[in-house]
C-alpha cells in the first residue's frame, strides 16, 4: 500500500490492466498513475483499474475517462487530495494508484 512499485499483488493487477489497454489500442507510455502528479498539476483521466465495484464507485464520483482532474496535495506518501468536477476528494494512495491519467 505504501510502496506502489513493489507490491506484488498490485503488480499483477497492473499487468492485467495494461493488457486490456493494449487490446483497446491505447498507448501505454502516455498514461501515468494519478499519484505521479505533483501538487498543483492537472491531467485528464484515461482509465481505471481494480475490481468492478471499486471502478463503479470512482466512476460515479466523476472519475470517468476524459474528465479533468487536479492534484491539490500529494506528499509522496499517504493519501492524496484531488479536485474533480468541482469536488474535493481524498483518496488513499493505493486507490489513487489505480487511476491512470494522461497530460491535458
Amino acid at each position, binding site marked *: *500500500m505504501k510502496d506502489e512499485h513493489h507490491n506484488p499483488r498490485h503488480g499483477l493487477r497492473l499487468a492485467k490492466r495494461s493488457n*486490456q489497454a493494449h487490446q483497446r489500442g491505447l498507448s501505454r507510455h502516455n498514461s501515468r498513475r494519478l499519484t505521479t502528479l505533483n501538487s498543483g498539476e492537472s491531467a485528464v483521466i484515461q*482509465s*481505471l483499474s481494480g475490481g*468492478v*465495484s*471499486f*471502478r*463503479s*464507485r*470512482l*466512476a*460515479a*464520483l*466523476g472519475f*470517468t*475517462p*476524459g*474528465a479533468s482532474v487536479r492534484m*491539490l*496535495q500529494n*506528499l509522496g*506518501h*499517504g*493519501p492524496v*487530495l484531488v479536485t*474533480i*468536477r*468541482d*469536488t*474535493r*476528494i*481524498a*483518496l*488513499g494512495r*493505493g*486507490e489513487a494508484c489505480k487511476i491512470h491519467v494522461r497530460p491535458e
Partner: protein
Amino acid sequence: MAQQEGNMIRVALAGQPNVGKSTVFNLLTGLNQRVGNWPGKTVEQKAGTCSIDSWAFRVVDLPGTYSLSANSPEEVIAREYIIKEKPDVVVAIVNAATLERSLYLVAELLLLPAPVIVGLNMIDVAEQQGLTIEPRVLEAAIGVPVVPMVAARGQGIHDLLARIKKVACDGAEYTPNTPNIRADHADVLARIEELVGDHVPPEYPSTWVALKILEGDQQITDMIHPRLPPEAWSEVYQIIQQHEDTCVAVAGGRYAWIARMVRAAVVKPRIGPITLTDRLDRWATHPVWGLVILVGILALSFALTYAIGSPLQELLDLYLVQNLADLAIRALDTAPTWLKGLLVDGVIGGVGAVLTFFPILVIFFAVLGILEDIGYMARAAYVMDRFMHLMGLHGKSFLPLFLGFGCNVPAVMGTRVIESQRARLLTIIVSPLVPCTARMGVIAFLAPAFFAAPAIVSWALLAMNLAVLVLSGLLLNRFILKGEQIAFIMELPLYHLPNWHTIAITVWQRLLSFLRRAGTVILAVSIVIWTLSTFPGGDPETSYLASLGRLLEPVGTLMGLDWRMMLALISSFVAKENAVATMGVLFGVGESGAGLQAILRNTLSPAAGLAFLVTQMLFVPCVGTVATIKQESDSWGWTLFSVVFLLVVSLAGGVIAYQAAGLLGW
C-alpha cells in the same frame, strides 16, 4: 391519481452526501420525524410528516448515496424503496456548487418508476463561486421540475412543496429526458433487455434491469439469474464477460448526458475565485499544521465539555438524583424495604447516575455536531488517514472513534459511515478503548486518592489507552480480522457556516437514542445488579455479587486488589461511574466523596491503585455499549469476542501495572 391514504402524498427524499439533504428534511418535518432502522439493516431510516393547506406529506429520507449501484447497503435500500414502494414523488436534492457531480444521482433516478423533482440547493454558494445557473433552462433540458433553493435559509421550501403537490396530482405529464447509453453499447443493452425482458419481476423496469446487468451489478444479476432459462443466462453471462469495462463506460455516458443538460443552464467563470475553502484547507489539510489544528480542536472540545459539563453534572446529581431518591424514600415510607431498595438504589441509583451525564453529552455532541456540520470532520479524517492505516483502517474510522470520547454508544453506532464490513467490525471492537467521559470521570475522582500529580497520571492513562487501541487494532488486523485493505474515497465538502437547526436536531436525536438505552437496557441491568448485591441476606458483603467478587479474588491478588475493588470493577459494567458508588457502599462511607478518597489512600498501595486505574481504563465497556455492539455487529459471537478480548486486555494490563510498579518500589 397517486393520492393514497386520503390526502397523504408520499415523498422520498434522495440526494448525494453533502448536498444539504438533511437540512431540507429537517426543514420539512421539524420535530415530526422518527429515526429508526431500515428493516433488517443497520442503516438509519428517517421518516416524518408535514402539512400545508390541508395537504399532508409523508417524507422518507433515503440514505445519502452517490449513485444507485449495489456498492453499499445504502444504495440498495434507496433504489429498492423507490422500485418497491413507488413513492408519489422523488425529490432529488442537488448541490448547485457541484452540479455535474450531484446530477449523477438524478441521471440514475430518472430511469426508476417514480416522478422526480430536482431541488437545486445551495444556489447562494454557487453564486459565491462565480457560477450563474438558470433553473428554468435546466428544467427545460431535463424535463422535470427544478426548484431553486437555499435550504439553510429556508428559501424555496414552499415552492418545492407546491411542485410536489402538482406532480403528485397530475403525474400523467411526466416525460423526462433520460440519459441514453453510449452508442457502442446500445446493441448489447438491447440484446440483454430482449433476453431478460420477460423474466423481470413486474415491479422492476426492464430497461433498468438490463442496464444494471451490463454495469456488472451483482445484486440485480443474482436476482435475474435463477429466473432465466439456461440458454438465455449463458448468453447474458457471455455478454457480461465480454464487457467487463462497461461500468465505467455507462458512468461516462451519464456524465456526457449531464454535460448536455447543464451546457445551456450554467455559466462557469474561466478561472474560479480562490474560495474560503481553498484558504482554510491550506491549513486544515497540511501534514503538520493540520495535525496541530486537530489536536487543538480536540483539546478545546474536551476543555469546554468538562469546564461547563462537569459542574452541571454535579448539580444534576445533587438536585435531581438525590432529591428524587429522598422523595422516593418518603413516598415509600410504608412500603417493604426491598421495594425501597430496588427503587432507590437499583433504579434511581443506576439509571440516575447515567442520566447525570446528560450535560456533558449535550455539550460534546453539540461541539461535534458543529464540527461535522461546517465540514471540518472530513478534514480530520483525511489528516488521520495515515495513522489509521497502522491498524488496517482508514481515515473514516477516525470519526466514530472520536465520538467515543463523549460516549462509546454513539461511537459504535457511528461506525456506520465505514463501507467495509471488516473495517467496521474492527472499529467497533477497538472503539471501547477510547475512554468516554464517564471513564475519565472515574479517573479524575480516583487519581488524586493515590497520586500527588493526578493530572499527569490521567494524561498518561489516556495515552496508554490510545496506545493499546492502536496495538489491538494492529494485532486484530494482522491475525483475526484479516482482509484486503479497503478503499479510502471521501469527499471533502465545502466549508459553510453552521446551520443551528440541523445541529440541534442531530444533538437531540443522539441524546434520544442514549435516553432510550438508559430507559431499557441500563434499567434492566441496574435492577439485576441491585438484586445480586442485595440477596440472599440483604448485606452486600454476603450477597451473590460478593461471591462473584471473591471468585475473582485470585486475579485480584495478582494486582493487589481485594474482592471489594474487583466488585467495583464489575459494577462498572452497568455504568462506568458505578465503580465509585460501589466502593462507597462496600467501604461503608455512604457516598461522601472525600471520605472515600482518604479510605482508599489508607487501604491500597499506590501500586494497587495504579493497577485499578489501568484496569478500569481498559475494562469491558458499559452494558449500553455492549448492547449497541450486539445490535450493530448483528452477531453474538463478535459481541462475546469483544467482551472477552477487553476483559483479558484489562486484567493483563492491571497485573502488568501492579508488578511493574512493585519493581519500582511503589
